């Protein structure tokens, strides 16, 4: 693709509860749409081929690797990112639990883990350790060995 590539796509989408009207190049991933067009850089790029989960966001309640979704595909949809987890009242219980359990070291995978874990807890109120590990297996962390991440999710359940 070059600067001469086909015309941009008109997209109306809701991101973290706020409506955005965008002109998105047809080749641009949702990841780059969030990071480059909107400026929401909390969603991270790790591999660009859907294997690390650092770019996990939620689209209409379903978690996706945003590097594998086109920005043009979220027209009319609800997108939620890590920036939308905390409220004016405070951090999301998962965010608080990640801090209290030291579930992050470098922090690059953390936004993806938080969004993925929220996707689990929104639908299953009390998953087992095995279920948590299975659900989060699409998110790679190289720092923690996962122990404290799993414990943080367990803590957020309580």
């Amino acid at each position: 693709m070059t600067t001469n590539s086909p015309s941009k796509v008109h997209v109306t989408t809701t991101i973290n509860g706020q409506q955005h009207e965008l002109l998105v190049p047809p080749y641009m991933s949702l990841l780059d749409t969030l990071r480059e067009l909107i400026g929401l850089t909390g969603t991270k790029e790790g591999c660009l081929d859907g294997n690390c989960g650092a770019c996990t966001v939620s689209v209409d309640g379903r978690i996706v690797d945003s590097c594998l979704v086109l920005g043009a595909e979220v027209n009319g949809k609800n997108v939620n990112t890590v920036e939308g987890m905390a409220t004016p009242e405070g951090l999301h219980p998962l965010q608080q639990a990640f801090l209290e359990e030291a579930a992050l070291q470098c922090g690059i995978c953390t936004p993806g883990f938080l969004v993925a874990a929220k996707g689990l807890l929104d639908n299953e109120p009390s998953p087992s350790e095995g279920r948590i590990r299975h659900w989060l297996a699409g998110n790679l962390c190289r720092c923690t060995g996962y122990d404290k991440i799993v414990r943080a999710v367990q803590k957020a359940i309580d």
Partner: protein
Amino acid sequence: MVATYDTKTDYKVIGNSPIRHDGVDKVTGRAIYGGDVKAPGLIWGDVLRSPHAHARIKSIDTSAAEAMDGVFAVLTHGDFPQTDDKTIDAGEGTVNLRRGQSNVMADKKVHYKGHVVAAVAAVDRNTAQVAAQAIKVEYEVLPAISDVDAAMAEGAPQILDGLVGDHLGESVENTNVARVFRHEFGNVDDAFANSDLVIERTVSMSMVHQGYIEPHNATAIWGQDDNLTVWSSTQGSFGVRSQVAGLLHHPESKIKVNYVEIGGGFGGKTVVYLAPIAALLSRKAGGRPVKLVMDRSSVFEATGPAPGGKIRMKIGVNKDGKIQAADTDLMLEAGGFPGSAVGAAAICVFACYNLPVSRITGYDVLVNKPKSAAYRAPGSPQASFAIETVIDEICDELGFDKIQFRLDNAAHEGTRRGDGVQFIRVGLEECLVAAKESDHWNSPLGDAPAGKKRGRGIASAYWMNGGGKSTCDLMLQDDGTVMLNEGSADIGGTRTSIAMQAAEVLGIPVEDFHPSIPDTESIGFTGVTGGSRTTYTTGLAAYNAAQKLVVELKSRVADLWETEASNVEFADGVFSANGDSIGIQELAGKLDPTGGPATATASVNLAEAGNAYGVQICDLEVDLETGKTDVVRYTAIQDVGKAVHPQYAEGQIQGGVVQGLGWALNEEYFITDDGAMANRSFLDYRMPTSLDMPMIDTIMVEVPNPLHPYGVRGIGEVPICPPLSAAAQAIKEAVGKPFYELPVKPGRILEAQND
């Protein structure tokens, strides 16, 4: 002179686990990493990489890229300034500037697939990609050398033109072995002849990658005044500055490296790849900011791996359980340019044992794979796998208890390490005793389900830890809070573990500290976050700065109370003299008449670091039909000196263990016949996921490091070492066959069963 301390034991701050200061930024997406950097007028760079593992560059035609709309600059090796063979310190290892330049961008030859040949800067990321691919390169393809045997074979083609090897002090031409060195004490042949049992094995292992989730990135602005500004994911901003200065012949004072958060490094982000390219592209593009982000396959193909290689290990022992002698040849892959971790491997290989006689010979071997970089205790995991494999066989053969045998031969204070250094107080024996008394060691393996078998392995390992240079500044604010600046990249909560040490001295709650990591213009030189040096070394700088601040404040109190500073006492955050007393935070608001703001700065340069030992126990289950392994229980015992922040200390150990288990069981560079890495994605280079691992139990032993006032030892690296052998020995026990090659992947287990 090395300062030693009598460690205190009653702590107010040290040993607690406060929430890290940068925590909220990192759980809300607000923290700025290298890839998040924006600058007005930013354009994008991309590179063209060699499709061949070994080839001579015949010609490069950049005309098509230059003619393309939206392209601002095209770069080849000829755009770099001439450099000489000067070697500079890069934090964890050194960089020869001429070879460093050739690694950043190939000169006349490519040494590995993915080697950068040219670069472009263009209006956006896609245009840059298309333009880079439009550059035409003609190659003369040469045979690819993929392992140490091929590299050391008679008549092997030489990878690095003009390399003269140093082989035990002799200059050798036409070789791929950059260096052969030896540490020797006593006569090993005599000692083996007098041993009751001698076991000799050769083990081998594949290259593995650090696997940080954040790819390399760099953004640079080369101003019209030649002031260069850089943002880059790195373990040390000053390391980027010194390497960019050296590679581009540019004054350090004209280079500003801004701190950005780093998404994992593990040693692999001590070397520069993209920063010099971004800088030169920006200069050619008239000072526009240029940003590059590496794709994942390039991260695998062209950055960082830990050396694979081959290790011969021979150990002689007597029936009374005393090791008589050990002899090893360490042959590690440097990659496409000299400089593997074999020097550190040689330091670590025998460091768990008290050996009367030993010989270590190291070989630094070039192969057509990426130039290896530091990876968590560089060289020690490979070395630990070799020696612990043979130790385990000795114990099996002569019926020794695996912990008691290690205790009977354990290194301790005064023991001579394999390279001749004598140990100060170390905690290996305490770790072994803790392992012996652990619930894990005293619990039965448990029954495996039908079709599976269980085994238990144990292994120990060593890392010497790092010291070096660090700086910390403290600025007491009027409201009693403290601004703390320090130079260490924070990869795992070190802002807090450093601030805690100043807080302990000052008696100010650590929550009242604001630690930050400024750019290279705003803090004194600080080495990379690597070598397990940060909480120890930068922490000591914080401790010293806090002590200086106390001295300063005593004189201010003396001014206020019209007495002599020598009359002022300070304890638990309270100054007192002649019956008066005032808390340090209250004092902070009363300093104006005494000379204004109170600040203190301290820099340290520590020659020694105090050593780390770990002992680990692994229970795993092997599926006899598929060869799949599952770790069912794991305990890591480690001497941490003093755990400043126990939660993050434990996290370091758990993370290291899981990286080590990936190395032991699954991870490898799968190299094709033409020298390409076949599995260059996270899908195929399969690192452990949450589903693959159990909880990792830890036992932290605290044998204070005499070189630190709080007894702190580096902790981050040694935990990656024992899993290689602990897992392999567990599989041996499960299936009854030894394994000498890593990873012990399902296919190897099935093959061994069918033998």
